């Protein structure tokens, strides 16, 4: 187990592994996206209250889930890098930030596009929306710290500390719809008991969520390869890899 872990965490091995895994992950992401979009936009019936506008859910909710999930991965990887000085963990944290920011932005923007026809407004300063906006700023902060300063490792440590402090925001976002009176609707899928959503809508939603997970994996590995190349450019394995066009 430890042997395997060490081998996997070695930048050279990870670089090669990522190069092989990316095409597979990308294909899987594409297939899941096609299936999820077809199920959500074509097969699923219109909502009896919201008509077709509810179809934004199939991109809005998975993006919002990803914004939280990636943040937790980023903070955890940052923490591991901070404590055990594992290079790969720092790389994972650094590369997760822009992807997480993208999903957070999509969650906010699609929510806005959904809010306009349903609530009559693009934006309200309610608990759920505001805490998600703070999440976007936390991502921006982490990205800014990553690119600040000459030394990548110092930058990684600084951004890991910010990411770990910002974890407090995650439960706030999740429970905001219960703790405060908000315009945002409560949870439909993860609440206790059966989800209050019909199977014909739930299945494409879960497929889209899975597609977003695989999208994240694909994008993360692509970014991690570039980041490793940049950080390790003087080491021999990079020279070998470049010569072999890996």
């Amino acid at each position, binding site marked *: 187990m430890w042997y395997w872990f060490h081998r996997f965490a070695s930048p050279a091995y990870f670089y090669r592994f990522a190069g092989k895994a990316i095409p597979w992950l990308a294909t899987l992401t594409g297939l899941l996206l096609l299936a999820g979009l077809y199920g959500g936009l074509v097969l699923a019936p219109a909502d009896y209250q919201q008509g*077709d506008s509810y179809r934004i859910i199939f991109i809005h909710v998975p993006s919002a889930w990803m914004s939280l999930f990636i943040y937790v991965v980023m903070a955890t990887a940052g923490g591991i890098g901070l404590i055990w000085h594992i290079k790969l963990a720092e790389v994972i944290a650094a590369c997760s930030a822009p992807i997480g920011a993208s999903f957070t932005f999509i969650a906010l923007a699609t929510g806005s596009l959904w809010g306009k026809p349903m609530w009559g407004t693009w934006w309200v300063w309610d608990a759920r929306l505001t805490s998600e906006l703070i999440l976007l700023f936390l991502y921006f902060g982490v990205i800014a710290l990553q690119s600040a300063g000459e030394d990548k490792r110092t930058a990684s440590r600084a951004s890991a500390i910010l990411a770990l402090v910002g974890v407090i925001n995650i439960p706030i976002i999740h429970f905001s719809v219960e703790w405060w009176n908000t315009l945002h609707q409560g949870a439909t899928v993860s609440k206790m008991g059966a989800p209050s959503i019909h199977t014909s809508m739930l299945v494409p939603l879960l497929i889209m969520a899975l597609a977003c997970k695989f999208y994240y994996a694909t994008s993360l590995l692509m970014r991690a390869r570039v980041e490793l190349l940049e950080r390790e450019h003087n080491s021999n394995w990079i020279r070998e890899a470049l010569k072999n066009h890996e």
Partner: protein
Amino acid sequence: MNNLAEFFHMGGYALYVWGAYGLATVVLSYDLIAPSWRLRGLKRRLALRHTHADSVSQP
């Protein structure tokens, strides 16, 4: 699909629904393409530096 126009119409919410999906497509496509641009520049720089280093280290 017997009614393609209806599909694109989205029950009158076309602007919002397609706007949301279009926006997500743009953001995620950029997210995927951006690192490969960075990679290309980086590879070119490293290749130059490595060939330079090789020629210097040879007697």
